[in-house]
C-alpha cells in the first residue's frame, strides 16, 4: 500500500542519491577505462605531499567538473536561437530527473507504483534525449548540426532495441508497472528472457550513453565536440549533470526490469550496487576495446544484430505469455 508521507520523503531523497550514485558510476567508468589503458586515472588517494593543494580523494571528480563549469562564464553565440539554446539544457535535465523519479531504488518504490510507469519512464528518457538534440541544432554551429544529426539517427535505431527489450519483459510478466516487474519472482524462462532482453538493452544503452563504437555524435576532435561544441559554462554543466542522471536512470531501469528482485527491498542494496558496477564494467570493456564506427556502420550493426536478438526475444516472450 502506498504511504504518502514516505513517498514524498523518498521523492526528495532520491535526487541526491541519484546524483551521488551517478557521479560514482561515472568515476568508476573513468577509472576503469584508465586502468584498461595502462593509466592511473582520477586518483582514489592523492599523493601525501600534494594533499593540501589537490585534495585527499578524487572520487567525486565528475562532480568537480560540473561545479567548475557552473563557476565559469557562459557564452551564448550571436547566431544561435537564444531561447531554445538556453532553455534546452535545463529542460533536458528536468526530464532526466523526472525519469529518475519513476525508477525504483532498493527500499523506495517512488512513483514506479503508478499505472503505466514503464511507458512514462521510457517517454521521459526519450524527452531528455530530444532536448540534447534540439539545443545543439539551435546553436547555429555546423559541428553541432552534424553531431545532432548523428544523434538523431543513433537515437532512432537504439530506441528500437530499448523498446523491444523492455516491452518483451512487460509482455511476459503481463504488467506495465515497473514496481510489479521488479518485485516479480524469477522462473527459468523469465531468466532466459532476461538474458536476451538484457543483451538488447545493453546494446541500446551503448547508443544512448555514447559508449565507444557508438560515440560518433560526440566524436571528439573529428567534429570538434559534436553537439556540445557551442556550449560553455552553466549550460554545459547542466548537460553534464543530465548525463549523470541519465547514467543512473538507465542502470537503475536495467536492474529493476531485468534483474528482479534486486531493486525491490532495501536488503538487496549491496547486490544492487554490485550489479550496477558489473553493468558498468561490461560497458567500459566495450568502450575501451572498440574504435569508433561510422554512423552508417552503426545503423547497419544495430539493425542486423538487433533484428536477430529481437526475434529470439519476442519468441521467448510470447511463449511465456501464451504457454506458461
Amino acid at each position: 500500500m502506498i504511504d504518502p508521507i514516505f513517498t514524498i520523503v523518498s521523492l526528495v531523497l532520491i535526487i541526491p542519491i541519484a546524483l551521488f550514485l551517478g557521479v560514482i558510476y561515472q568515476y568508476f567508468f573513468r577509472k576503469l577505462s584508465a586502468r584498461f589503458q595502462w593509466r592511473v586515472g582520477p586518483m582514489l588517494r592523492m599523493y601525501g605531499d600534494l594533499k593540501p593543494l589537490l585534495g585527499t580523494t578524487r572520487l567525486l571528480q565528475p562532480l568537480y567538473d560540473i561545479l567548475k563549469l557552473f563557476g565559469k562564464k557562459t557564452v551564448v553565440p550571436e547566431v544561435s536561437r537564444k531561447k531554445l539554446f538556453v532553455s534546452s539544457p535545463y529542460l533536458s535535465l528536468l526530464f532526466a530527473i523526472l525519469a529518475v523519479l519513476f525508477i525504483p531504488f532498493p527500499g523506495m518504490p517512488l512513483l514506479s507504483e503508478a499505472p503505466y510507469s514503464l511507458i512514462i519512464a521510457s517517454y521521459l528518457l526519450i524527452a531528455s534525449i530530444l532536448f540534447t538534440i534540439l539545443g545543439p541544432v539551435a546553436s547555429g554551429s555546423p559541428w553541432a548540426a552534424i553531431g545532432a544529426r548523428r544523434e538523431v539517427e543513433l537515437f532512432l535505431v537504439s530506441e528500437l532495441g530499448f523498446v523491444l527489450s523492455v516491452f518483451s519483459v512487460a509482455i511476459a510478466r503481463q504488467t506495465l508497472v515497473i514496481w510489479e516487474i521488479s518485485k516479480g519472482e524469477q522462473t527459468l524462462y523469465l531468466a532466459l528472457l532476461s538474458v536476451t532482453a538484457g543483451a538488447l538493452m545493453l546494446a541500446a544503452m551503448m547508443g544512448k550513453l555514447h559508449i565507444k563504437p557508438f560515440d560518433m555524435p560526440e566524436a571528439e576532435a573529428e567534429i570538434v565536440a559534436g553537439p556540445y561544441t557551442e556550449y560553455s559554462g552553466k549550460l554545459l554543466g547542466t548537460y553534464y549533470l543530465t548525463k549523470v542522471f541519465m547514467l543512473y536512470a538507465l542502470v537503475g531501469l536495467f536492474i529493476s526490469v531485468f534483474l528482479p528482485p534486486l531493486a525491490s527491498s532495501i536488503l538487496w542494496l549491496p547486490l544492487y550496487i554490485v550489479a550496477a558496477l558489473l553493468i558498468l564494467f561490461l560497458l567500459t570493456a566495450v568502450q575501451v576495446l572498440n574504435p569508433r564506427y561510422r554512423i552508417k556502420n552503426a545503423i547497419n550493426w544495430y539493425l542486423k544484430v538487433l533484428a536477430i536478438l529481437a526475434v529470439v526475444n519476442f519468441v521467448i516472450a510470447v511463449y511465456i505469455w501464451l504457454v506458461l
Partner: protein
Amino acid sequence: MGIIDKARIYSPWLYHLHCGGCNGCDIETLAALAPRFDVERFGIQLVPSPRHADILLTTGCVPKQFIPMVKRIYEQVPDPKVVVAVGSCACGGSLFYDDAPENYAILGSPDLLIPVDVYVPGCAPKPEAIINGVVQGILKLAEKASKKE
C-alpha cells in the same frame, strides 16, 4: 575558499592551440597527456572545443595568416582563463623572430597578440616541464578567479 574555487583547481581542462611551428612541442605536450605521465590523475583533461577550456596551451610562433584565428580562439575561451605558452618559439619567437629585416611570414610569439600568463621555455620542453607550467597556470587561475569576486 569556496567549493567552486576548489573545483576550479581540481578540474582544469586544456585546449591545445598549435599556432604554427615544428611540431616538437606538440609531441611533448601529447606525451604529457599520454599514459606515462597521465595528467588525468589530477583531473586535467584535453577538451576538443575552446569553449569548454580553462587553460589555453599554445605552442609555436604565430604565422601572419594565423593572427585572426589565435585572437578568436582566445576570445572563445570563457573567463576565468589562463594562457600557457610552451616552447622557445611561443616564449619569444626563437629562431623565427627577426628585428630587421622583418620576417615576411611570421609575426613572432603569441604574447604579441594575447596575454600569456605562464611561459615554459625549452626546445622542446620536457613533459615534466609542461606539467609544471600547467600547474603554475592552475594556481594563477585560482588567483584570477578569487580577485574577480
